């Protein structure tokens, strides 16, 4: 979002002068710079999670000390929190939809609900980590432990950053400080949010559902 501002100053002046025909907002691809870079960033993130998931898949059966995946996973609990996270994608879509209709009130509302659902998911993860720890699975206990906490922890951090982004958008929208296309700002956060959800679908399937 950082450079939306710079962009829009250009935007404001493009209706006159020789610069008109090739103003920066008329990009060669038709996608705005911000959106294109978000897509590229998410492409890069795929390999980050790819590396972490590979590490986990390699190590999930290796737990000489401490419990293994079959002994500690609580599938019903994680299914509920996964469902909550998936629902947050729905509310995110509603937020983007409201933003496109320039309905600030509902945009803020849906963004807040999305953030709350995300927070609920992170809360579930904290609860899960705590109970695993009490069942004897520490970060340093085994290869399974190290790789499990690293993979799901990285995902949790991504969700947390997403929540912060949502809250910041709500905050600056209420103060009317977004210097540009509001709908696009919401959409960018939405892209990130959906990506994090999709990654969770993969993690949930590979880590929790497929028996090791």
């Amino acid at each position: 979002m950082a450079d939306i501002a710079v962009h829009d100053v250009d935007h404001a002046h493009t209706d006159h002068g020789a610069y008109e025909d090739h103003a920066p907002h008329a990009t060669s691809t038709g996608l705005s710079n911000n959106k294109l870079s978000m897509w590229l960033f998410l492409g890069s993130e795929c390999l980050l999670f790819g590396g972490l998931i590979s590490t986990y898949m390699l190590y999930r059966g290796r737990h000489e000390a401490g419990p293994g995946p079959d002994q500690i996973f609580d599938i019903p609990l994680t299914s509920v929190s996964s469902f909550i996270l998936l629902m947050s994608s729905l509310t995110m879509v509603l937020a983007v939809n409201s933003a496109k209709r320039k309905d600030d009130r509902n945009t803020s509302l849906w963004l807040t609900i999305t953030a709350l659902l995300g927070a609920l998911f992170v809360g579930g993860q904290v609860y899960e980590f705590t109970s695993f720890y009490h069942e004897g699975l520490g970060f340093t206990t085994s290869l399974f432990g190290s790789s499990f906490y690293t993979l799901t922890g990285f995902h949790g951090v991504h969700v947390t950053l997403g929540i912060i982004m949502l809250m910041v958008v709500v905050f600056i929208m209420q103060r009317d400080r977004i210097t540009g296309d509001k709908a696009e700002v919401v959409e960018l956060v939405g892209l990130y949010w959906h990506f994090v959800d999709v990654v969770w679908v993969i993690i949930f399937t590979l880590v929790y559902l497929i028996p090791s």
Partner: protein
Amino acid sequence: MAIIERPAAVPATVDAVAAPEVVTPTQALGAFRRPVSSTGWKSWLFTVDHKKLGIMYGAVSLFFFLVGGIEALLIRLQLAAPDNTVLSADQYNQMFTMHATTMVFLFVMPMAAAFANYFLPLQIGARDVAFPRINALGFWLFLFGGLFLNSSWLLGGAADGGWFMYSPNSSALFSPSHGIDFWVLGLQITGIASLIGALNLIVTVLNMRAPGMKLMQMPVFTWMVLVVQFLLLFAMPVITVALFLLSFQRNFGATFFDVNQGADPLLWQHLFWIFGHPEVYIIILPSFGIISEVLPTFARKPLFGYKFVVFSGAAIGFVGWGVWAHHMFASGLGPVSVAVFSVATMLIAIPTGVKIVNWTLTLWGGKLWFTTAMLFAIGVIVLFTIGGVSGVTHAVAPSDTQQTDTYHIVAHFHYVIVGGAVMGLFAGFYFWWPKMFGKMLNERLGKWNFWLMFFGVNLTFGPMHILGLQGQPRRMVVWPEKLTGDGFFDMHFWNQIASVGSFVIGLGVLIFVINIFWTWKKAPIAPLDPWDARTLEWITASPPKEHNFDRIPTVHALDEFFHRKYEEVDTADGPRLVKVKSAEEILAEEESHADAHIHLPSPSYWPIVLAAALPIIAYGVIYNLMLSVVGTAVLLLAVFGWCLEPSVADDSDYDPPAGGDSTKELATLG
């Protein structure tokens, strides 16, 4: 003296309805203003200008080049005589680790970034990159990451596990100093710089080309930089994962590489080389781009087979993802994997060979002009081909098993990196210096620079082929007298030749440094178009104005500048190219149609503050987590400052407000 336009109000003549929604530059939350200096040290510290950042990238990379070079000379001093004692085994390990790390991450990559930053927007006719502040952040992260990495020398010793940092040697058991921690965290910081740089440049190329410029009309350098940025985009996250795993193990007791717990040591090798092999092309492709600009200019004919050069570059980038395990032939992957990776590796030779053929045929029949830049470019063709041929011998797995971990490998990758990448960058220095600084590097010194480096490379790395096939292992602090052979296979003799050669390279580099200072102090002003060049960056002043182009050029052809200068005229002997316009005339024409509204991004305080927070966090990870908390606080402050700063500097922050036509007002700042 730079010009920055004051934020102008929408003129009254414009219909209020037609005016876009967002008109007033925001004050954000009113917390921070933006800096406005365009001269003095502040203008460098807070700049977001891609040209200033490019120059800073270059200067810092050059500094690290000298650091890495001194490390190399110490290594060669140690190996100049049998059972030598210049360095202890421990110091030697640190030296070759840091030599490689410095040269790869702190010289070749950022020097390519310097050229990319400076010339990519100019070559595509843009006023700046897509995200100027992120660009500045990338530079400061690189600088601070590099300094952080090298601060380990003073804090108990540098990393000593080799640049590939194989486990389990990288564990705290085998490397108890903090060196590897510095290495891991330093590379994380410079890695962020590479990643955000990649995002920025890809968006710039895809979105901000001058009107009329199609992808297949972009200069080859721009194309190669684009391919490299995609490689960075997908390679950096993989090394990021590997580095996280290693630092979690070393700093927080995770077990990823602990064989006692059943860990697989190959995990690190795979992660490292999935990054590491694309990295090889990240290193070489910018140089391929540079010489693809230099060769046509000095052969005075178009690049032979432009499309083949572009697509073979993209093919190298693509196939480069499927060959990483050829670094691991000796690790027991199994015959199927070895065969697959062996064949895939040989495939890489095809697009590379295509390029060599294209460059050679570009020279064929051209009116060759042997400037220093041209010599370096031809040097790349020769030396890279030698390195490429020995590379194919490594692709053959049975042969590689004999060569692996010997000096034969060292010979190969120095021929392609020094002979290919570094010589290519030097071609870029001599070619583009007049554009960047308005003065030409001295050609006499330049010739000395070239020939010393060319002979030096062959003297240093040529003998290593023989040493390697004789079985001298890499990374060994000494070679024993009793193992030296006779005659042609005299290890003693060839090691001394290699050491002498390394100092010849050093002398060549020294002459380059002298040349820089000579040019700075004594050289006359360069002509506008000294090389009769071909691409867009030459349709502007030297050095370019802050806003690059007075009028954004409209592109009609590949080699646009050349086509504006020359036209085909029918003569009795058939069609001839005739020069119809000089560079000065073209520039004057552009200036007379200057754009009325040039909007440049304002400088910003926050990139440097944000970048400075990361080494603080990293020191905290090593020494005391409280320090990390402080660093994180600085980070958050910087992020919020960044987000909340106004989009442009405040009106009243500019020097004397001038009256008159508010739409064309340019304020000059001190």
